[in-house]
């Protein structure tokens, strides 16, 4: 007892001494987290998100008006659900981490929601688009700044139907991400009267698609819809060409990255893709974000979802500034977020923590760039997609 008592006394004395000795400007340290795929096939997006979250923290630390000094703890989920659960548990179990911006991959985001709920860690998803992440449960801890694949696929089905396409083949990867895209695109297309001739599930690391594509060739659809990420998207598009398939390649937010165009070269021309939000430069705070981002001289570009990671981290930091570094208070504060200005536009969370402002941007690849559909030569009629009416 004596020993313990003396320890407390020493501790208290030390605390007192340190608080007395500390200059008035020193701020309390607060830890916040970031999780994304930093290695593996989609790591460019994860690194872009990491840099963007890091940028938000650095800007805040440089701000003299900020009440706390923030430290960013970064973990890698490798876009694998099993790894994600491990790192999410590690982060959530660390009580010093107040809140986190988490996950680019839907498969990892959906796998970890229960972990965050169990440990009571408030998170803001910055890139994953599977609706179930926010809508399967009603977890107060889980929020999301980007839109979902439901909105994305409605816009997609609308566009391809307007262009006069009637017959489709669907290739999707068999993760939650790909299956979700398949489901919501098929639903949206059915209401527009399009016909799906065949649906093919493929594994997320498959190399050879010639067998599936040969079947699709026999079905002869006007459009091949692809629900999956960049690496196999590149392979499928390249192998379509090898088999002489002329259909339109209609993809999702999963391929909106420079890696897709670099991987395909001229073959990328005419690929359709859709994304929640607007292109970084067209976002309300896009110019500001890019200036600050470039000033930091990161190795990687922010990629398509960098601005969302930045917005997610900003939201976390704003909440902590307002209510203090306390998980419960941050959760309560996040529930109040309504019409909040951010660099990705207004953010309003519904009762599931989902941002309800579904800005969807339509893209077509033209001359090696993702061009907004409405600004493209395909929309103006100067160029035509295969079979476009």
């Amino acid at each position, binding site marked *: 007892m004596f020993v313990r008592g003396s320890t407390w006394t020493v501790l208290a004395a030390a605390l007192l001494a340190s608080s007395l000795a500390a200059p008035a400007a020193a701020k309390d340290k607060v830890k916040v987290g970031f999780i994304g795929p930093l290695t593996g096939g989609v790591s460019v997006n994860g690194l872009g998100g990491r840099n963007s979250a890091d940028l938000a923290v650095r800007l805040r630390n440089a701000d003299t008006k900020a009440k706390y000094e923030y430290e960013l703890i970064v973990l890698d989920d490798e876009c694998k659900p099993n790894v994600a659960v491990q790192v999410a548990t590690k982060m959530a179990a660390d009580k010093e981490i107040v809140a986190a911006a988490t996950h680019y991959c839907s498969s990892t985001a959906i796998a970890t929601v229960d972990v965050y709920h169990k440990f009571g860690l408030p998170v803001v998803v910055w890139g994953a688009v599977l609706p179930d992440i926010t809508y399967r449960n009603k977890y107060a801890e889980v929020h999301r700044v980007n839109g979902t694949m439901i909105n994305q696929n409605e816009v997609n089905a609308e566009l391809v139907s307007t262009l006069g396409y009637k017959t489709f083949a669907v290739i999707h990867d068999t993760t939650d991400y790909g299956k979700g895209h398949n489901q919501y695109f098929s639903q949206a297309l059915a209401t527009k009267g399009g016909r799906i001739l065949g649906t093919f599930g493929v594994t997320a690391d498959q190399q*050879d698609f010639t067998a599936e594509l040969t*079947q699709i060739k026999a079905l002869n659809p006007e459009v091949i819809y692809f629900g999956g990420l960049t690496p196999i998207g590149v*392979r499928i598009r*390249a192998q379509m060409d090898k088999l002489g398939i002329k259909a339109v390649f209609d993809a999702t937010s999963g391929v909106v990255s420079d890696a897709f165009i*670099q991987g395909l070269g001229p073959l990328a021309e005419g690929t359709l893709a859709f994304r929640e939000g607007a292109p970084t430069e067209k976002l309300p705070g896009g110019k500001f974000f890019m200036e600050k981002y470039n000033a930091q001289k990161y190795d990687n570009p922010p990629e398509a979802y960098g601005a969302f990671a930045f917005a997610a981290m900003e939201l976390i930091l704003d909440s902590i500034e307002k209510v203090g570094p306390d998980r419960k208070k941050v959760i309560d504060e996040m529930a109040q977020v309504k019409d909040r200005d951010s660099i990705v536009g207004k953010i309003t969370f519904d009762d599931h923590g989902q941002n309800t402002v579904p800005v969807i941007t339509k893209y077509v690849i033209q001359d090696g760039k993702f061009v907004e559909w409405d600004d493209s030569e395909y929309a103006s009629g100067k160029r035509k997609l295969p079979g476009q009416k």
Partner: protein
Amino acid sequence: MDAGLLAQYIMNGLMLGMMYALVAVGFTLFFGVLDVIKFSHGDVLTVGAFTALATFVGLRTADIGSSALALLAMLVVAILAMAALGVAIARYLVLPLRSAPALNTLLITLMLGTVLREAVRLFYPQGANPKPFPALLPSDSVDLGLFNLRLDNGIMLVAGVAVIAGLQALLNRTKLGLAIRAVAQDEETARTMGVNFTAIVLVTFAIGSALAAFAGIMNGLYYNEINFGMGLYLGVIGFAAAIIGGLGSVYGAILGGFLFAALQTIGAAALPFASAYKDVFAFAVVIALIAWRPTGLIQEKISERV
């Protein structure tokens, strides 16, 4: 089924089978001479493909050469580099572990595979992204109904057959081949007959790794895309193909490679349920085959005496 469609499936299967066979032959060669399983083989293929791509990029920056010349340079550089890598692996990782349990070799090469794979990802510029591989072969094609016959696929098939035939001739008709076969059959006797054991092992690893480089370039030309993870999957399939064919038998490896490709193609094309299960189907058949013929379809000629 439509004849053109059938022809297309057969063509797809043949191309796949050729790549699998080339990888499987490497596994079987290494097992033949040293009774080891070298699990980094698939990743050597990846490094080979990336070496070829780097050569191409280098040539293009220097602005020299036609596509034929570029392809030749890529083949030469990648094959020589991978042969050297194979020799280094054998000399510094596999041979020193000769007296250790075979499991150690398996583990050390498995780890080396991860090192090679991650090295490509980290050190090749933007190595985490899929890379476009140049189409250097003439891409003329004719549409025969639903069959798209491409000249480049034909050239690759012929080249693959030529490489395998060349390997056969090397093994069966040259003094070097005789020495390799002698070492494969009985190391002690081969030594007493004056065969330089270490040199033969190194040469065999050079040949096997050169084949991997060739398969890697073929993979790149066929898909026009390479990525740092390509070798892992090809390695597993090549290994499975070598096992069902009969480890140690070159014909068995070739047979196994084409058999596996056929199973995958049938799995994707003919089975009523979705193509997502084609690998499940192919590997399930492999399991059944191994249970039926544990030593493989074509057995290595061993006369073990106690």
